[in-house]
């Protein structure tokens, strides 16, 4: 047995890979409804490609207009009048927005003048003397390239932080004058991580153990959340017209989405893994839910995705042929549903931009909970803004059929059951694990049991997984397998072409018994795979 490190020194060893058959990948499937590229890899590519290139890519491929065009090709001439109608309205919108912008520019200038003098002196006093604020482990700031405050976590009024924002903007622009980009600053335990996305700058100031690339990933999510609210085309257009625009006007009411997202990322391993968790259901129940949706919505033109979710877990997803959904987009949908109590009160008709699907435009979403007695939320996403009533009718039918088929009960049962626990696997020394299947971008983890049932401990566990993930994916020296013996637990991380596995064991578990346990675990996942994962990729 490897001896425990003396103080914080971890005993890290690379171990021989446990033996599994080369094609043994529990939960694997030849078809996937999710885009399966690894989000960290994608991030690296994005960071390396120049901004212009990305812009080009974005402007030439608009998925939404592609779908609309396709549909226009096949529509009967009757519809042309309504098309024209649409175009007219869109023109109006553009004009309206233009006039709004010119109006706002006046007011925002006034705001700026009024604010400039008194605020500067307040800043340091109020911002830095507040002990709570300084104690926070992670801050996130968003500002425009011109240095205007957009958002700050843990702080109500960004105006009072105007000098801090000024420093951040100065740092970015000083480095930019040398034709370079600032990525991070390291000072003691603190990391200052910068992400520059077109007209806006995102900064994370963190004293956590997260790596720079993980912090960049989080900032990218925050940026995508903003795009999801405004679309990238609107965002860019605004700043092209008014460099000095106060974006908080347009983001009013959406700060809570960013707040929620940041908290969400501190609890949920889904973001780190770039994968989605499914609600465990008997395959026959899941199939019948999926079939009900296909039968009811199959004939509705323009419907791109039907997504049913409960408790941050996916129940089913039906998609238009040819189109896939990216886990990032799905995470943003989970975040939206989670942070919007108002969806529970009534049917909503909500514009949603899915940044990975098409960052330039909105999909229109019919969003509603299945019923008062079932906490599952159904989203029907379309490119057609005039089909609310069609979708509303479809939703009623779906609910009736599901109720008739006892599917609502089955969903409730699965939601209310605490979920599988690690002990059910039958490996007593194993406390918790994350299993991600690469070919489907889905993951599974058991319910958090003692000692991880308290927030502090569960966040510590996620921190350990993050560190392990970072070590395994380190660009300079990627690892396949890692066995870490720490003070409070033993961790094992293992990456193959088919899956990623992160396991937390009791502290004194040897490499040998960990390897045996992992083999047992994989066999258990294989046995349960059709309940834990969605193994097909249904289309309309």
């Amino acid at each position: 047995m490897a001896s425990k490190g003396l103080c914080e020194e971890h005993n890290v060893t690379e171990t021989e890979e446990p033996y599994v058959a080369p094609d043994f990948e529990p939960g694997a499937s030849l078809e996937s409804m999710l885009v399966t590229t690894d989000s960290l890899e994608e991030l690296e590519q994005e960071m390396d490609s120049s901004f212009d290139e990305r812009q080009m890519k974005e402007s030439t491929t608009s998925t939404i207009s592609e779908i609309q065009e396709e549909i226009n090709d096949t529509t009967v001439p009757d519809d042309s009048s309504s098309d024209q109608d649409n175009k007219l309205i869109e023109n109006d919108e553009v004009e309206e927005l233009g006039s709004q912008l010119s109006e706002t520019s006046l007011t925002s200038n006034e705001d700026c003048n009024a604010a400039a003098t008194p605020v500067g002196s307040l800043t340091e006093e109020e911002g830095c003397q507040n002990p709570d604020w300084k104690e926070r482990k992670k801050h996130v700031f968003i500002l425009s390239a011109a240095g205007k405050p957009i958002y700050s976590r843990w702080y109500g009024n960004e105006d009072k932080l105007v000098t801090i924002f000024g420093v951040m903007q100065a740092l970015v622009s000083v480095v930019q004058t040398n034709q370079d980009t600032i990525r991070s600053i390291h000072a003691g335990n603190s990391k200052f991580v910068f992400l520059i996305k077109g007209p806006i700058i995102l900064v994370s100031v963190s004293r956590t153990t997260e790596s720079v690339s993980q912090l960049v990933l989080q900032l990218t999510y925050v940026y995508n959340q903003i795009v999801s609210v405004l679309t990238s085309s609107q965002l860019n257009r605004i700043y092209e017209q008014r460099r000095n625009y106060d974006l908080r006007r347009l983001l009013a009411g959406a700060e809570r989405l960013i707040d929620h997202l940041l908290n969400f990322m501190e609890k949920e391993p889904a973001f780190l893994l770039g994968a989605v968790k499914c609600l465990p259901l008997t395959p026959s129940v899941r199939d019948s839910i999926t079939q009900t949706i296909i039968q009811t919505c199959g004939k509705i033109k323009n419907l791109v995705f039907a997504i049913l979710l409960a408790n941050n877990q996916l129940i089913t997803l039906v998609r238009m042929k040819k189109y896939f959904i990216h886990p990032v987009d799905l995470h943003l949908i989970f975040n939206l549903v989670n942070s919007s109590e108002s969806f529970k009160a009534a049917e909503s008709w909500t514009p949603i931009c899915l940044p990975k699907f098409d960052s330039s435009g909105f999909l229109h979403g019919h969003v509603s909970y299945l019923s008062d007695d079932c906490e599952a939320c159904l989203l029907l996403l379309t490119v057609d803004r005039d089909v609310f009533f069609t979708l509303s009718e479809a939703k009623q039918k779906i609910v009736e059929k599901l109720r008739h088929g006892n599917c609502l009960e089955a969903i409730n049962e699965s939601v209310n059951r605490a979920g599988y626990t690690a002990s059910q696997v039958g490996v007593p020394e194993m406390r918790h694990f994350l299993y991600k299947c690469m070919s489907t971008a889905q993951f599974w983890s058991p319910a958090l049991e003692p000692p991880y049932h308290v927030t502090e401990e569960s966040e510590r566990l996620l921190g350990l997984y993050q560190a392990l993930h970072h070590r395994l994916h380190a660009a300079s020296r990627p690892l396949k397998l890692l066995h870490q013996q720490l003070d409070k637990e033993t961790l094992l991380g293992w990456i193959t072409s088919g899956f990623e596995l992160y396991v937390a064991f009791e502290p004194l578990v040897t490499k040998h018994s960990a390897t045996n346990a992992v083999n047992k675990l994989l066999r258990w996942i294989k046995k349960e795979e059709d309940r834990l994962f969605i193994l097909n990729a249904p289309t309309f």
Partner: protein
Amino acid sequence: MRTIEGKIVVLGAQGVGKTSMVLRYIGKMFSHHISPTIGASFFTCKLTVQDTRVKLQVWDTAGQERFRSMAPMYYRNANAALIVFDITQYDTFQAMKDWVKELQRNVLESMVLSVVGNKTDLESQRKVTREEAMQYADSIGGSYFESSALHDEGIEDVFLSTAIGLIRLSQDSLCSSLRIYDSSDPSSPVSNAGVGQLCDGDTSREGQTQYSLQTSSLAHGEVERSPVCC
């Protein structure tokens, strides 16, 4: 029995209490924890005024600036509008006027207009006087109401008077987008519906209320003003 079916749009600046009003009326509840509406929410409710059944399709819109460009989708073919402001925030009163102007520009058909000053429970912080608001409502040919979604005051009046306004509108037969059902057979609507009124979407969240014109609470002078078209 005659049934008429009308589309109502609820407009106004963010945070004035549009959703709270609708939820108070239709859901008979008030929550301190509702989140801002994203896009718009759809409700239906039915009321009976004397011998006419009125079905209301209520579009509760989001007040945030970024949804402004989507508003036409909701007020297109609307038969009535509730334009809400917060009596403690003068700028929401100004914003309300902008909404009225936008409606007057873009909605050609006659429409029942109601101006609602919400949050009367915060009377001590009032910034918009009843007189000023009433005068404005008069000038645009609308009715003025004050309400408190928190204390459930004045909200029934708003919807009831809107329903009565719709009945009058249907009698004028000037309005082509208002749906009027035949008396005996409600299953085959005599419809001349416009775009966007495809079905009535009977949801589980329906309020159903019986009223008669005589006994209803139309005691306030400002309520009984005939709806004038914009």
